[in-house]
């Protein structure tokens, strides 16, 4: 490109660049301060749907205010964001919430609801094994991160069978139904899934379902949690309200379904026995 005033342009170029950089920095700071974000990470699912979640939630949230959605596929990145106490609402699994709360205080405000339930139970199903004592050498399929699956298995096996854990291979698959069907066609010896996923299999593939038997089951745990960083600033309240009322609008309801939920329930309306499970430590 040629210019009528090459000398002037060359002399001013660094200054213009510096001014533009400062402007960009100011813009990003202002945006960060005024845009609240919903941060999402769920180690209980391996469905790579982050692009779809981002598009659908951004669409919905931006219509409600200066809000955006940020899904994470890596636990470390999500926890770094939390450690920096980024302004916003955190959607995370109750298993992760309980683990995180020891080091990064969070306060759960909403709990997910699916088919009228607040909690789910994970179970271990197999076609060929008669009991958990036969697990050494087995491959167990399940949805979610390996950390999560190993912890679920540990809980299900208890102290009596804890020694079996190192002798088991885990296969992380995108969703519960994949894990259950992997047992059906022999890729896995057993599957970790929720009870409700096993019930879904009964509807879509009754023959495979009939071949499975439950070897062990875990304790009930909450569905997704919506939490804010402690100490609470109060600035998150409008965004929390937007999330709480999502189910009242068709687009919001559809987005909740993408998270496996039908709606939210406020923690302060739950029975004390349930609330106790979440107010940690």
């Amino acid at each position, binding site marked *: 490109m040629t210019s009528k005033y090459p000398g002037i342009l060359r002399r001013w170029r660094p200054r213009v660049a510096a001014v533009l950089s400062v402007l960009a920095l100011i813009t990003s700071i202002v945006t960060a301060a005024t845009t609240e974000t919903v941060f999402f990470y769920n180690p209980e699912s*391996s469905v790579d749907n982050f692009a779809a979640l981002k598009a659908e939630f951004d669409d919905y949230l931006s219509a409600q205010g200066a809000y955006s959605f940020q899904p994470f596929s890596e636990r470390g990145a999500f926890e770094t964001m939390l450690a920096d106490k980024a302004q916003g609402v955190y959607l995370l699994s109750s298993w992760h919430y309980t683990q995180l709360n020891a080091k990064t205080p969070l306060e759960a405000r909403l709990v997910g609801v699916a088919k009228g339930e607040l909690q789910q139970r994970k179970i271990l199903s197999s076609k060929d094994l008669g009991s958990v004592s036969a697990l050494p050498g087995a491959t167990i399929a399940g949805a979610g991160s390996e950390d999560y699956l190993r912890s679920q298995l540990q809980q299900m096996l208890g102290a009596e069978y804890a020694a079996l854990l190192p002798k088991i*291979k885990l*296969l992380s698959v*995108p969703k519960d139904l994949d894990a259950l069907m992997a047992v059906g*066609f022999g890729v896995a010896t057993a599957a970790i899934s929720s009870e409700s996923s096993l019930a879904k299999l009964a509807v879509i*593939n009754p023959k495979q379902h009939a071949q499975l038997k439950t070897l062990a089951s875990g304790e009930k745990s909450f569905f997704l949690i919506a939490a804010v960083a402690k100490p609470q600033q109060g600035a998150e309240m409008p965004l929390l309200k937007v999330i709480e009322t999502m189910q009242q609008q068709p687009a919001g309801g559809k987005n909740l379904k993408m998270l*496996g939920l039908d709606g939210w329930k406020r923690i302060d309306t739950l029975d004390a026995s349930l609330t106790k499970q979440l107010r940690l430590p």
Partner: protein
Amino acid sequence: MTKLLALLPFLAVFCCPIASTAQAQAKILIVNSDNTVQKYQQVKDAFKVQMTPHAGRIIDFDVQQAGQPELLEKLIKDESPDLIYSIGSQAYQLATQFGGSKPVLFSSVINWQRFQRGGNSYGVANELSLSQELSLLRYVLPNLQRIGVIYDPHFSAERIADARNQCRELGLTLVEQTIDEDHPLEQHLDGLLDKIDVLWLIADPGVLADRATVEKIFTGSSEHKKPVYTYSDAFMNYGASLVVAADTPTMGRQAANMALAILQREPIKETVQTPAGSHITLNACQLGKLKKDYNADALDAVNQLLECH
């Protein structure tokens, strides 16, 4: 003999650490047909994440980048890996050609049955099981019970016989239409579309002969307001309503578990495994145009959701 028996527990104790040390020092060669292909890269990354804690060393070889396949022969001779993991058809062919008696594991090989396999060959297939494919169709589109399929008996007779049984077990009705030179698609497409709720497009080279045929199928389906269910995202541009394919990272993790079993000399029941994970693309926009509902409770299983914007 009695003394030997008495020694057995000690042998067992000492043999195990030896086996695990051998596994920890195992050298694995990954032969990738083309690193620039995203699916190959994904499967390799997932394999490495799962395998790295258990392997001594992982060596990479990219067939495209290397240019000369003979370099692989030299690498195998120099490094003498304990296992070769090949990604894609080209890599698999070269690995079996130069690998000698080394165990060769494959994935991302389309229609692996067309290759001759030796006793040291293992793999993860590229296609989901029929049972999973049809179960997930039933899960996402539960109201569509009559499934139409067009096939050429020269290519797909066996697969359709399996599908017939699977559909019976799942409570679905399979409406079949064969085509060949004497019975071209044009004569039968409209008749089939009138009788079905959803068209299941399978990977049959006799049916998907060319682009014009594919367009004809999709245009006809759209005119009859019938959604198309198929196996590859490549058909989304034509207007497929639902695609269920194998999940690529899961294939990499499966391959890693198989590699461990091979290195530990564990008995392997299935030398070629069916992919365990599924990847779902739902075209909600297209279904809306066809006035067909989908199961909203299945949305958390969907990887890609296409809406009308």
